């Protein structure tokens, strides 16, 4: 089943993001009989782009099952089962569909532990995929993690690479709280070195993916990959960009971001979402509140255009930040008054071919 697992004990293998997700869930299901996976089409031959492939064969239909199209009730079922001691992983092929179960997530899952004075826990994972490209359009492309960051009681993680995908998924399943797990579908094919043995990526610890001194680029989810690409392009223009991956948005490792921004005195937060009341607003606001104007930090936010996502490629391409627009923005920040610069679009377009390889 898991071709990558063979042989080298606990060693690291190049693994695709999608396989890392699947391996994490399989290992946790193996370890803990309370874990189960459900959601629309988790058991069909497409297996959520392969991320649930083989699970029903291995663990049976009582622990891996599809559902009716009833997101609201199914979310309640996950919450109730979690309160009863099970550890559900509820899968949604689009984050947009979480709008159908906001009531259960916001009014019950986030609040139960508190509202009931600590008498219950809600250990559940809500897997939600963000779609992009090929005319996904208005209702199949949204990154709505900010809505969950807004409400106390929910954890939100957005791993950007296969290594963190596995480690965060294991940590999320073992967490005693509801965790909204954000997966960008364009990351599914990206590879990274991933330990074979189960491991946790601790929430609330950001990773400096690339060190730099002129500007700090904080990327969310797939935007980490785009920022790393932008950093390569910037290097060729003589600008040293530091790239920080928060990994988890709630809890947020604010200290690492703040320290980097203090050093570079330039911060650009790049999110795969709208900026208004977004994760980028939160990160920028906290940095400015705590550092104060004395720290002399210039801040910028980048994200979706402030529009609905169009399907036609001529417009869709301009809806998202990309290595080129990120690099240009960073250049403007680092070279105020300098001549406009945009990297060779050809070289900038490679973001998702370049495989992420650590460092870990």
């Amino acid at each position, binding site marked *: 089943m898991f071709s990558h697992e063979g042989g080298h004990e606990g060693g690291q293998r190049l693994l695709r993001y999608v396989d890392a997700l699947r391996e994490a869930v399989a290992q946790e299901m193996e370890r803990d009989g309370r874990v189960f996976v459900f959601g629309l089409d988790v058991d069909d031959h497409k297996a959520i782009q392969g991320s649930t492939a083989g699970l029903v064969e291995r663990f049976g239909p009582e622990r891996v099952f599809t559902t009716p199209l009833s997101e609201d009730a199914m979310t*309640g079922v996950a919450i109730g089962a979690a309160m009863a001691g099970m550890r559900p992983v509820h899968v949604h092929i689009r984050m947009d569909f979480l709008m159908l179960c906001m009531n259960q997530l916001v009014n*019950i899952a986030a609040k139960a532990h508190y509202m009931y004075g600590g008498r219950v826990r809600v250990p559940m994972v809500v897997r939600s995929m963000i779609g992009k490209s090929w005319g996904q359009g208005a209702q199949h492309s949204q990154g709505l993690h900010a809505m969950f960051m807004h409400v106390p009681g929910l954890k939100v993680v957005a791993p950007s690479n296969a290594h963190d995908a596995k480690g965060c998924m294991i940590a999320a399943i073992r967490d005693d709280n509801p965790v909204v797990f954000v997966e960008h579908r364009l990351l599914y094919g990206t590879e990274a070195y991933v330990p074979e043995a189960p491991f946790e990526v601790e929430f609330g610890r950001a990773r400096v993916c690339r060190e730099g001194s002129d500007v700090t680029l904080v990327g969310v989810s797939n935007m980490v990959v785009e920022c790393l690409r932008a950093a390569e392009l910037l290097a060729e223009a003589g600008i040293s960009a530091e790239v920080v991956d928060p990994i988890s948005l709630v809890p947020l490792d604010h200290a690492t971001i703040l320290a980097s921004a203090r050093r570079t005195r330039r911060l650009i937060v790049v999110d795969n979402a709208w900026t208004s009341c977004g994760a980028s607003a939160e990160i920028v606001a906290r940095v400015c509140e705590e550092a104060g104007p004395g720290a002399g930090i210039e801040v910028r936010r980048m994200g979706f255009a402030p529009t609905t996502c169009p399907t036609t490629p001529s417009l869709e391409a301009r809806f998202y930040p990309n290595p080129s627009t990120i690099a240009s923005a960073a250049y403007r920040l680092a070279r105020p008054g300098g001549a406009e610069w945009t990297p060779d679009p050809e070289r900038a377009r490679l973001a998702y071919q370049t495989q992420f390889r650590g460092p870990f």
Partner: protein
Amino acid sequence: MATPMVPAGIGPDDIGRLYRSMRRIRRVEEAVAEVYPTDRIKSPVHLSIGQEAVSVGVIDVLREDDVVAGSYRGHAVYLAKGADLPAMIAEMYGKATGCAAGKGGSMHLIGAERNVLGASAVVGTHIPIALGHALAAKREGAGRVVAVFFGDGATEEGVFHESLNFAALHRLPILFVCENNFFAIHTPLAKRWATDRLCERVATYGMPAHRLAEPDVFALRGLAAGLVAEMRAGGGPAFLECHTWRWREHVGPAEDYAAGYRPRAEMERWEAGDQVARLGALLPDAGRAAIDADIEREIAEAFAFAEASPFPDEEELFTHVFA
């Protein structure tokens, strides 16, 4: 309405037990209504007065390890299942000793030690939560069942139908109990339901569905006993629609017939059918008096406990955000 007979197989102990449970709920709610104007209770109250028989008739056939779930109007469910009375009153007083540590109030009672799920103030939201417990109970395979209580208004929420379908599809051990008191706040069924063929509709999901149009705690108990027995034996879900009547205002301690949205005359019919009075009359005076005295003592102690308990410390504001 003519008082129905006591069915065969119901003994004095049963009558005493059912009377005690219903009377206790009635008196607790009346006591809550009494102190309410003093502002010692710190959250809105939705009283169960008049609807006690529904919770008691069903829950009497459940085991301690069975699960029950109710709404913001869930005091009867909480008490019928045997959850802690002092902790309930303390919760309404906003005290640290409350069943939800003072953080939930009247609308969010929870009786963890007796498998009473936390109540929700968003209508219908507790139905799929109860369903999740039924899924867990089925996987566990120990014959435990879940009973979820909700109002007529909750059946208008889409999640109710999603839950029925899923329960029937997976044959989960859950008893859906609709307490149809004919009103959602002040709005009558006629403004909310296209028809009153609710049981017929639910039955199309492939589960037994019965309506009890007359208040008769014995009949309800008998019906519930049969349905629950089948569930324990691996049967699927079932549904009960129990007609009942809210004697007080939607929220708050008083009667509200002066408001004019429902006729006082209707009330009389339900007073005549009051199961607390009916079962009380079936008991010998001495026995009833002893039960009543017990209850009054218990209630007095509960309120005293709540009074004497401290409010939560300031730092409690920040505990329990995450487990």
